């Protein structure tokens, strides 16, 4: 689930892949209110943070997709 929408992904995809394939470009909102998406895709930059199953600050590029996951963007 991405922001309440149900989405199907390939097995083994990361949450970042699921979001990008779904057309989501703004994963989070910066301190000054800008939309941000993945920059480094290897867990270093922290720009791809989303809330997964209620837990904030999780790096989408490192998280594997799991059936039933709830992903919330824009935090």
């Amino acid at each position, binding site marked *: 689930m991405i922001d309440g929408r149900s989405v199907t*992904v*390939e*097995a*083994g*995809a*990361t949450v*970042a*892949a*699921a979001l*990008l*394939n779904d057309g989501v*470009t*703004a*994963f989070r909102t*910066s*301190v*000054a209110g*800008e*939309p*941000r*998406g*993945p*920059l*480094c*895709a*290897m*867990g*270093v*930059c*922290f*720009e791809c*943070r989303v809330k997964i199953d209620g837990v904030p*600050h999780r790096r989408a*590029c*490192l998280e*594997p997709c799991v059936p039933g996951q709830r992903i919330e963007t824009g935090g």
Partner: protein
Amino acid sequence: MAERIETDVAVVGAGPAGVAAACRAAECGARVVLVDENPRPGGQIWRHGAAAAIPAAARAWLARLQRSGARLVMGAAVVDAAPEAWLLVEQGGHCLRIEARQLVLATGARELFLPFPGWTLPNVMGVGAAQALLKSGVSFRGREVVVAGSGPLLLPVAAALAAAGARLRLVAEQAPAADVRRFAAGLWRQPGKLALAARYRAGFLRTPYRTGVWIAAARGDGRLQQVTLTDGRATWSMACDLLCCAHGLVPNLELPRLLRCGLAQGAVAVDEQQRTSLAAVYCAGEPTGVGGVERALVEGEIAGLAAADQPAEAGLRARRARLRRFAAALRAAFRPRDELRRLADPRTLVCRCEDVALSRLQPGWGMRQAKLVTRTGMGPCQGRICGPALEFLFGWEPDTVRPPLKPVALSILGEEP
């Protein structure tokens, strides 16, 4: 209580250098633990997963690793360390303490991002980043893509994107044409590399590959829509919805610096055995100087052997010397040009975690003062993105490393080590 693992050799980082070190040390009979943050060994360059194949040599090394007897601790990040004592590792929300007689640091590298107006727009990402996303299942079919920046990584990534159905509009290498030509000419000694480069180039033949060209700005409303390019004289714009731009690699030095390993020229200083300034700590691969997969493998082998108290074969040392020369030539040819220091305008953000614009930073400060005055480097990435950029822009040395090396639940630090 943290789980304790006691071993002869702990290798941090399961990219090529770490894999090679773990193999050689284990094959000599040492008890070896290999630690990596990713779910599978291979690091960045040998990332394999949902949609990725890796070269035969990589598969061979990974198979050798499985046979070697080294203990793999995957999905595990080193968050703190004490020299000659222990590594504090977080794995799946639990705390592990690894005590090893010898340590091999093979922490790899990350991309160098130099700020330019609009670089924070969604759909502006790194070059290796695009490759990593491809491998983790992202579809780039039909995207209008520009690949830009520095270094040989532009070629395989451009080819991979083209093969994945992206509409690759341009590949722009900032290095001057003369430097790139000279470097390519120097590859006659390594026909294999030349052939590889040609194969990559053939993968995006319909796309121009231009040297001496770099990104001046990115524009768009909430996401990338257009890039502006320049060759230092003319500027022109191009519609695009994905920009892959990075300027080579910077070594991951956080763990070596935390341990107080001596540095030289921005890399970990090592001797002939890949030993650092700390007697029981070795370092191999990108952290000793960015230099590619083959050099990382050779250094890894030498470090693994040394950690197991075995000498390195003469052939290994000779190969290392050759590969180091090649790496130095590569770094020189593709070094970021001076004009890249002047791309950012006063409103361009330098610290993305804390949204600090260039205008708020005074060149004479230094990283520590910038942190305290503007919060630059105080966000989750702890200066990993803005730090190298500021070193390029102003010559600022990185500030002291403060653990945890990556954000980790307080409960991990709260366990009695």
